[in-house]
Structures are given as structure tokens and as C-alpha cells.
């Protein structure tokens, strides 16, 4: 009994820590960069877009871990993957806009993509707490 309760608690702590760190790291880099991480401050929309890709990858890794640990259903993992595919597509659209010189549309698409990323992260945070 003790072991089961402890195991669940451990996963919650580790999971919440990782998701929070991912969001904070992404936000810190977007806003001011972080010398401790060795990552440069993005200059312009194109470089801000570039940091979305590792954020997508982190959510995909977390979802894989949750699925393999039996914490989420196959259908739920599929739903996250669908969101990530939409997010990946939107990020590409933002990239195309910025390459075409349309900063306004690129920024708007980037904001939309960040909203989707937050949805996926919220889902994972909820599942980590179960």
C-alpha cells in the first residue's frame, strides 16, 4: 500500500517539475534568454519560431513516457499527437510567413501555435497529477 501511494506521488512530483521547467525554460528564452542554459536570446520572429520545435519535441517525449508508463490511454496519446501535428504545421506556416517577409501574419500564427502548445502541456500536467 505504502509503495503504491509513494510511487504515484513520485511520478507526480517529477512530472510536474519537468513540465513546469519546460514552460519556464521556453518562456525565459523567449523573453530574455538564459546564459545558464547556454542558449542565445532569439533575435526576430524567425529565431523565436525556432524555439517552438524543441518545445514540441519535449511534449512528444513526455507523452511517450506517459503512454509507456500506462498513465494515459492510447487514444489520449493519439489526441496529443494530433495537437502536436497541428502545432508543427502551424509553426511551419509561421516560418513561411516570416521568410516571405510578412512579420504580422507570422507573429499571429506564432501566437496561435503557442496557444495550442499550452493546450497540449495542460493535458499532460492534468494527466501527471492523476
Amino acid at each position, binding site marked *: 500500500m505504502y509503495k503504491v501511494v509513494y510511487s504515484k506521488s513520485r511520478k507526480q*512530483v517529477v512530472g510536474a517539475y519537468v513540465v513546469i521547467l519546460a514552460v519556464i*525554460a521556453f518562456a525565459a528564452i523567449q523573453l530574455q534568454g538564459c546564459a545558464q542554459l547556454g*542558449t542565445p536570446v532569439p533575435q526576430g520572429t524567425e529565431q523565436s519560431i525556432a524555439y517552438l520545435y524543441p518545445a514540441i519535441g519535449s511534449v*512528444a517525449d513526455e507523452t511517450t513516457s506517459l503512454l*509507456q508508463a500506462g498513465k494515459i490511454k492510447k487514444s489520449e496519446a*493519439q489526441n496529443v499527437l494530433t495537437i502536436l501535428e497541428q502545432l508543427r504545421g502551424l509553426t511551419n506556416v509561421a516560418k513561411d510567413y516570416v521568410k516571405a517577409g510578412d512579420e504580422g501574419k507570422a507573429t499571429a500564427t506564432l501566437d496561435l501555435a503557442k496557444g495550442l502548445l499550452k493546450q497540449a502541456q495542460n493535458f499532460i500536467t492534468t494527466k501527471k497529477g492523476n
Partner: protein
Amino acid sequence: MVPIIAGATMVLEGIDLVTSILTKLQAAGSIIQKAQSEGRTHFTDEEWIEVQKTADVPMDKLRAAIAAAPADKV
């Protein structure tokens, strides 16, 4: 004794996952750094491919995990 071992496991597991996130961020960061050091704000097509891999490789792993997972119990 058990809490100590479990605590150490938690820390190691946490470090492992955090390292995974940081590695991805740094992969993109190093490409940005290179562009900035050359006075560019734009990436070459090859650099974009490298950046996109930080999303594509984990997404492929997720697809494989979904394919290998048993069907949901009704």
C-alpha cells in the same frame, strides 16, 4: 533506507528528463548562435531542417509508441 533509495531514483529520473529538454533547447540554441555569430537573423534551409528535427524525432518516437501500445480497454 527505502525513502533514500526512492529519493535518489526520483532525482535521477528528474535529471534524465530535464537533460532531455535542455538538450533539445540547446540544439536549437546552437543553430541560432551560429546564425547570430555570422550576423544573420535568418536561417539557411539546412539549419531549418536541423531545428525541425528537435520536434520530428520525438514525434516519430511517439507515433511508434502509439502503434506498439495495446488497444484501449472499453
